[in-house]
């Protein structure tokens, strides 16, 4: 119950901030690009048969390669900045809330925004499908069978693979008063992680959290590595939440 009270307090703090609009705008980026692509380039012949499923799986896989990691790096870093920017850390910690509740309420608040991103992204992708259905009636897009379980599996894999990155950046966002450092670290590591998988295909990339999005996004890596990625990402999440909480406790006592 008290975690919910702390969560309510955290959600309230984001009112009137750009975080909500930023989430919606970031979630709309993929569907918008996809729509423009369909309008100007049309549908590739190879994909016409299964375009409905393609929109929900392949397109999300592309989103989870670039837009979602960037969104996570920024939102995880910027949300904890509310306290630094307003000089309110002491007031928060002097209120009758357990420190674990304050810490985890902030993390859950970020996860809620990530969920909002995914849901909005999928709804807008559905809107794309509806538009395409009427734009290209011959494709019968909405009449094509939708593989719901494959769609949810793709979404769940994308979320779980990026969970580690969100935990790492949440820790960095709480730790550093200057948000430039965590953002710079995130972008640099995301780039390195992507290149490592694309170019070298080294085995250790399975254990490098900034490479995980690549395994979800590209089919050629999925079958071989996805189980390891899911497990490793959850393990990293727990590890960095533990490190982050220790750091937070220590920081709040100094």
């Amino acid at each position, binding site marked *: 119950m008290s975690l919910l009270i*702390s969560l309510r307090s955290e959600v*309230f703090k984001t009112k*009137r901030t750009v975080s909500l609009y930023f989430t919606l705008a970031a979630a709309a980026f993929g569907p918008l690009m996809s729509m423009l692509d369909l309008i100007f380039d049309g549908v590739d012949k190879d994909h016409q048969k299964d375009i409905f499923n393609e929109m929900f799986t392949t397109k999300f896989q592309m989103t989870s390669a670039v837009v979602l990691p960037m969104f996570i790096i920024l939102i995880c870093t910027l949300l904890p900045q509310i306290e630094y920017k*307003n*000089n*309110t850390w002491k*007031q928060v910690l002097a209120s*009758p809330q357990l420190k674990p509740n304050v810490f985890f309420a902030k993390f859950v608040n970020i996860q809620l925004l990530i969920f909002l991103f995914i849901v909005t992204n999928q709804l807008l992708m559905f809107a794309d499908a509806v538009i395409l259905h009427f734009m290209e009636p011959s494709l019968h897009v909405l009449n094509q069978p939708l593989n719901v379980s494959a769609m949810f599996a793709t979404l769940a894999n994308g979320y779980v693979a990026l969970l580690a990155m969100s935990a790492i950046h949440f820790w960095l966002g709480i730790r550093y008063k200057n948000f430039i450092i965590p953002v710079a670290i995130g972008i640099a590591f995301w780039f390195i992680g992507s290149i490592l998988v694309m170019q070298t295909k080294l085995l250790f990339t399975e254990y490098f959290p900034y490479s995980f999005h690549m395994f979800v996004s590209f089919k050629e890596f999925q079958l071989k590595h996805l189980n390891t990625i899911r497990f490793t990402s959850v393990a990293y999440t727990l590890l960095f939440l533990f490190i982050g909480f220790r750091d937070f406790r220590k920081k709040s006592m100094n």
Partner: protein
Amino acid sequence: MANAPVIKTTGLSYHYSKEAQTLFDINLHVEKGSIYGFLGPNGSGKTTTLSLLLGLLGNQQGDIEIFGQHLHSNRIDILKKIGSLVETPSLYAHLTAKENLEIYRTVYGASKERVNEVLKITGIEGTGQKTVKKFSLGMKQRLSIALALLPNPELLILDEPSNGLDPAGIIELRELIKRLNKDYGMTILISSHLLIEVEKMVSHVGIIFKGKMLFQGSLAELHLFEQKGSKLLVDTSDNEAALKLLQEHHPEWVGNTLALPLKDREQIACINRTLTQNNLDVYLLHPKENNLEQLFIDLTSTKS
């Protein structure tokens, strides 16, 4: 029960680094229903002490009891009954006054009516949709106090609340603090380096300097201390001769003039008579009474 301590610290010491000790053996005793002025110049250890009282810093040495309970084993229960203003302004600039209070309302278990009530008490009920970033410093300070009042606290801890306020704002704040103490029976611990300001509202005083408590007691005890410290400054045509004539008053040199412990007004007349009867011209007979400001300067400069 009137003298029951709301705050009691025993042998409280703290250091941020091993080389520099910040607090030495602080024994605070804040009585229920009192307004306790915690005084000291900047860097004397006031905020560190208050941070320890609110559990913002880990206790290294000594013991803290609030409402008769140990702070570190009952932190949440104790904090529910404390309103605090730790650092000002400590508000969310992108939100309105009401929204700032709403963030903490359920944390403190306060009702929606209480939000309107504290806004009214602090006189900022009419700010509507104006966000805090558009508030004046005085309004921000009032909102910070409204936030501290939200839980209807038994104890109010205010860290330098008059910082940055104009004279009118300081007077308003003083009246508000007095009213909260009188009408709502709140015990108030207020830290300040503005000594004249605090003198007009507190019932008890603690003076801290370089991490050590120099004085602690009621205002009456402080006035007694002041009286003891009052001096009469004397300057005559021959101060060497005056020194010999006034031996029974225990004079001492202060620069080129003499200073004597001052007991009462009659003593001044007696000294004047002694000097003139011995053909000394009296240029100066100045009773220098110790107000809190002077006492504070004397206490802190003697110890430095």
